[in-house]
C-alpha cells in the first residue's frame, strides 16, 4: 500500500492540472462540440487578438506580477540581510507569521478601506491636515497601473517569502559566514548579501517562482483592488468563461492559454534576470567593496516590512469596525455609533458558511495528510529522498496559473457527468493543499533523528509501530502546523471553489468576493473577519495543543 502512495499523490496533484489544461486547449482551438463547433480553428485566437483591451490587460498581468514579486523579494532580502538574528527581526517574524494565513481577499478588503480616498488614512488626516471635508476624486484603488493591486499582493507575499527565507537559512548556516565577513570589515547587510544570499536564494527560488505565477493570475485580489477598464487578463478570462454567448468561452480558453504562455514567459524572463544579477553580483563580490549604504537600507527595509504588517493589521481592524458600524461617513474617524445589527443579520449565515468551509478544508487536509505522511514514510523506508525533479513536480500545480486549467477542468467534469458539489471541490482544493502540506512537513520530518528508529527497533518495534508510537507523536507539532497551513490554503481558494463547485458550494471566500460587488462594507466586514478567523484559529490550535499535550515532556518543546 505504502508503495503506491507517492504515485497516488502525484496523480491527485497533477492529474487535475493536466486534465484541466487539456480541457482548456480543446475549446481554445475551436473545439466545443456541444455548441456545434468542431475544431481545429484559430478563430478563438482571432477573437482574442481582436479585443481592444488585450494589450492593456496583458501588460497589467505581467507588470503587477513581476513588480509585486520584485518588491516583496527586495523587502524580504534586505530585512533578512540587515536584521536577522536581532530582536527586531524576531519581533517582525512573530508579527508576520500569523499574517501568512490571512486570506488574500480579506487582506485586500482591509487594504482597500485603508488607502481609498475615503479610507481610514484619509479620515485620520482630514480635514485637519488635508483640508478635505469630502473625499478627493483620486484614482487610488482600481488605478489603471494596478499599483493598489501590487500593494495588496506585496503585503501578502512579504510574510510568505520571509518565512520561506527563514526556513532556508537553517540549512545555509549564515552565522559563520557572516562572522567571517564581518571580521573582514564588511557591514552586516553587505556581508550577508555577499556571503549568505546566494545560498539562500537557491533554496527560495521555487517559492519566488510560485509568487510570480500566483501574482500574475490571481483573480480575487484583482477584482477587489485592480482596475476594471480593462481588468487583468485573468479577471477577463473568468468574465469570458461566464458569458452567456458560447463563442466567448472559446475566446476565454484561448486567453487562458495565453495566460499560461505569459507565466512561462515571465518565469523565463526572471530566470534570465537571475543570471544577470548573478553575473553582476559576482563582480560586486569580487570588487571587495565593503558597502556604504548599509544603515539607510536597513532602516528603510525594516520600515517597509513593518508598514506591510501594519497595513494588514489595520485593514483587519477596519473590517471589524465596519462590521459593528451604524451610519459612518467621511471624514469621521469612527462611526456615529456601534450596533450589533450587521452581526445579527449576517452572523448566522456566516457561521453556517464557516461550517461548509471547514468541512471542505477538513477533508482536503485529511486526504493531504494521509498522502504526504505516506510519501514521507515511504521515502524514509526506501531511503530514497526527494530529488530535485521531484521538488519541481511538487511545485508544478502552484506554477501553472489557476485561470489556465480550472475552467477546462470544469468543462471536463461536466463531460464526465460528475455531479457538481462538494466532492469535486475537495479534490480541486487538494491540488493546492497537497504541495503546501508537503513543503511544510517535509523538512521537520526529514530532520527527525533516525536513531530513534534504531532504538525502537532494538526494543522490538516494527516499522509501523515506530511510525505510530514514536515518530508521529514526536512530530505532532509540525503535523499540526502543516494541517493549519493546509486549512488556510483551502479557506483562501476562490476560483477552485467557484468554478468547480458550480455555485453550489459556497465558502467564506466565495461569499466575501460575491459581496464585494455589492459594496456593503458592513457585510464584507463580517465575512472578511470570519474568513480570517477560519484561517487563524487552526494556527492558534497548532500552537496550543502540543503545549498542553506535552506539558510534562520538556524534551518535546522546541
Amino acid at each position: 500500500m505504502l508503495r503506491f502512495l507517492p504515485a497516488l499523490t502525484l496523480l491527485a496533484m497533477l492529474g487535475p492540472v493536466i486534465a484541466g489544461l487539456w480541457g482548456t486547449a480543446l475549446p481554445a482551438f475551436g473545439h466545443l462540440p456541444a455548441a456545434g463547433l468542431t475544431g481545429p480553428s484559430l478563430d478563438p485566437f482571432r477573437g482574442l487578438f481582436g479585443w481592444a483591451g488585450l494589450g492593456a490587460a496583458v501588460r497589467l498581468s505581467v507588470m503587477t506580477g513581476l513588480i509585486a514579486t520584485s518588491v516583496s523579494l527586495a523587502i524580504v532580502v534586505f530585512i533578512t540581510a540587515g536584521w536577522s538574528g536581532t530582536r527586531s527581526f524576531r519581533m517582525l517574524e512573530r508579527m508576520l507569521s500569523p499574517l501568512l494565513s490571512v486570506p488574500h481577499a480579506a487582506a485586500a478588503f482591509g487594504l482597500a478601506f485603508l488607502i481609498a480616498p475615503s479610507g481610514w488614512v484619509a479620515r485620520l488626516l482630514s480635514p485637519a491636515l488635508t483640508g478635505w471635508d469630502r473625499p478627493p476624486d483620486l484614482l487610488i484603488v482600481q488605478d489603471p497601473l494596478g499599483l493598489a493591486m501590487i500593494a495588496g499582493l506585496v503585503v501578502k507575499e512579504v510574510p510568505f517569502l520571509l518565512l520561506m527565507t527563514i526556513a532556508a537559512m537553517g540549512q545555509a548556516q549564515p552565522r559563520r559566514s557572516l562572522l567571517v565577513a564581518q571580521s573582514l570589515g564588511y557591514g552586516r547587510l553587505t556581508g550577508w548579501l555577499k556571503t549568505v544570499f546566494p545560498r539562500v536564494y537557491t533554496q527560495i527560488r521555487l517559492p519566488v517562482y510560485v509568487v510570480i505565477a500566483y501574482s500574475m493570475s490571481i483573480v480575487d485580489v484583482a477584482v477587489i483592488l485592480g482596475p476594471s477598464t480593462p481588468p487583468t487578463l485573468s479577471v477577463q478570462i473568468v468574465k469570458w468563461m461566464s458569458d452567456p454567448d458560447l463563442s466567448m468561452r472559446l475566446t476565454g480558453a484561448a486567453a487562458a492559454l495565453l495566460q499560461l504562455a505569459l507565466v512561462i514567459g515571465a518565469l523565463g524572463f526572471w530566470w534570465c534576470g537571475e543570471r544577470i544579477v548573478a553575473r553582476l553580483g559576482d563582480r560586486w563580490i569580487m570588487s571587495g567593496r565593503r558597502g556604504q549604504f548599509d544603515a539607510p537600507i536597513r532602516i528603510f527595509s525594516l520600515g517597509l516590512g513593518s508598514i506591510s504588517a501594519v497595513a494588514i493589521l489595520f485593514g483587519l481592524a477596519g473590517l471589524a469596525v465596519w462590521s459593528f458600524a451604524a451610519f459612518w461617513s467621511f471624514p469621521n474617524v469612527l462611526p456615529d455609533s456601534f450596533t450589533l445589527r450587521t452581526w445579527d443579520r449576517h452572523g448566522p449565515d456566516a457561521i453556517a458558511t464557516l461550517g461548509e468551509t471547514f468541512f471542505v478544508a477538513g477533508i482536503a487536509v485529511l486526504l493531504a495528510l494521509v498522502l504526504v505522511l505516506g510519501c514521507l514514510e515511504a521515502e524514509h523506508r526506501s531511503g530514497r529522498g526527494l530529488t530535485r525533479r521531484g521538488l519541481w513536480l511538487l511545485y508544478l500545480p502552484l506554477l501553472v496559473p489557476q485561470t489556465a486549467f480550472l475552467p477546462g477542468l470544469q468543462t471536463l467534469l461536466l463531460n464526465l457527468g460528475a455531479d457538481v458539489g462538494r466532492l469535486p471541490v475537495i479534490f480541486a482544493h487538494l491540488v493546492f493543499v497537497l504541495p503546501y502540506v508537503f513543503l511544510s512537513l517535509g523538512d521537520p520530518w526529514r530532520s527527525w533523528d533516525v536513531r530513534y528508529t534504531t532504538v525502537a527497533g532494538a526494543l522490538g518495534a516494527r516499522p509501523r509501530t515506530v511510525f505510530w508510537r514514536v515518530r508521529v507523536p514526536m512530530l505532532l507539532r509540525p503535523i499540526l502546523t502543516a494541517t493549519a497551513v493546509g486549512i488556510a490554503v483551502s479557506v483562501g481558494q476562490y476560483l477552485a471553489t467557484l468554478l468547480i463547485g458550480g455555485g453550489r458550494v459556497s465558502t467564506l471566500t466565495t461569499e466575501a468576493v460575491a459581496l464585494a460587488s455589492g459594496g456593503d462594507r458592513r457585510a464584507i466586514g463580517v465575512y472578511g473577519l470570519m474568513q480570517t478567523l477560519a484561517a487563524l484559529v487552526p494556527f492558534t490550535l497548532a500552537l496550543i495543543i502540543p503545549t498542553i499535550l506535552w506539558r510534562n515532556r520538556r524534551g518535546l518543546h522546541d
Partner: protein
Amino acid sequence: MKHLTLIAALVAPTFALANPDPSDWDAVTTQASGQTVYWNAWGGSTTTNDFLAWVGDRVLEDYGVVLEHVKLTDTADAVTRVLSEKQAGEDDDGAIDLIWINGSNFAAMKDADLLFGPYAEQLPNWAVVDVDGKTVQTDFTVPVEGYESPWAMAQVVFVHNTATMPETLGSMDALLEWAQANPGRFSYPQPPDFLGTTFLKQALVDILDDPSVLQSPATDENYDVVTGPLWAYLDALTPHLWRMGRAYPATGTAMFPLIADGELDLSISFSPGAASTAISNFELPDTVRTFVLDKGTIGNASFVAIPYNSGSAAGAMVVANFLMSPEAQARAQDPNILGYGTVLDMDALSADERAAFDALELGIATLSPAELGSVQAEPHPSWATRIADDWAERYGTGQ
C-alpha cells in the same frame, strides 16, 4: 408485451418526475415536497439576500421545499452553467433550478431552448397578477409566453444627496450640464452590469426625440444612426464622471457607500424603494432622495425562470408561485425589507390582503406611484447587447 408494460411502469414515474404538469397544481405541490431548489440570484445585495432567506423559510414551512440561494456576482454565470450542462448532456438534474433573470439573458435562454415551461400563467397566483397594468407578459419587448414568472416591478430612479445636491434634474441633457458643473460627483455601474447597461438605455431613450425605433430589433443599417447621439453624449459626459471615467463602481449598491462618504452626489437605481431601505440600514444618509426625469424613466418587471434541466421544477414552481403571493409581495414592497414594486393587481385582492399593502409606509426617499410618473418601455435586447459591447470597446478598455 408483458416486459414492455413492466418497463413502462418503471419508466413512467421518473418521466413524470422530470416533467411536472403546471396545470395540475396538487400534483406539483405533492412532488415539490422534499425537493431542494437551487435559486441562482445575484448575491451582492444583503437586503435581497435576507428576503430570499425569508422566502426559503416560508416555502419550507408551507410546502416542504428546501430553498438554497446560490449567490451570483453576475446572472450570466447561471446561463453559462446551463449551457455547459447542455453541452455535457446533463439534461435531467442540472445545478440550477431557478434563476432571477433579466431580459437579455431571458432572450438568450429562450432562444436556445434552455427554459422549462410554459408554466407561469398556470400558477394559482397568476390570477391576482396585474396583467393589464404592468409589463409582465413581455420582457425587454420579448414575449414571455409563460417561460418566466414576474415577482417585482422595477423603474429607474436617480438617487441624490440633498445635503450636497438639492436640485433634481429633468432630463439627460440637464444631467450632463450638472455633471460639467460638478465634476466627479456622478457615476454609473460599469456595463455590462445590469444597472450600468440600463443607464445607457435610459440615456438613449431620453436623448432620442422618438425612441419607438428601439422597440424593434437593432439592424446593421439603423444601429449607428440611432446610437450616434448616445456616444456623443457619453463622450461629453465621461471626463466629468467620478474618477474621470477611468474607474466605475461594480454595481448599483456599490455606489451607496460612495454617496455616504460624499464621493458621489448623484447615482442611479433600478428600484424606487432601494434608497429608503439603504437609509434604514445605515448605508445612506437620511438626506438622500430620489427623482425621475420629466419624460419618465425605463421600467420593467423582474422575473424568475426555470432551466429546462432542473431536477426540481415542481419545487421551483412552488417558489415562483409563492413569490407572486400577496404575502410575499407585501413584504417585498416594505421599504424596511426590500422596497420593490408589486406585480399584483390591487383590485383582484381581498380586502385583508389589500390592507397589508395600504399599511406600508413607503419610506422618506421613495416616490409615490403618481410621482414615479409614466414608465418608458425597455428597448429590444438586441440594442442593449450591442450598446454594452460598444461601450466596453469605447470606454472599458482604456483606449
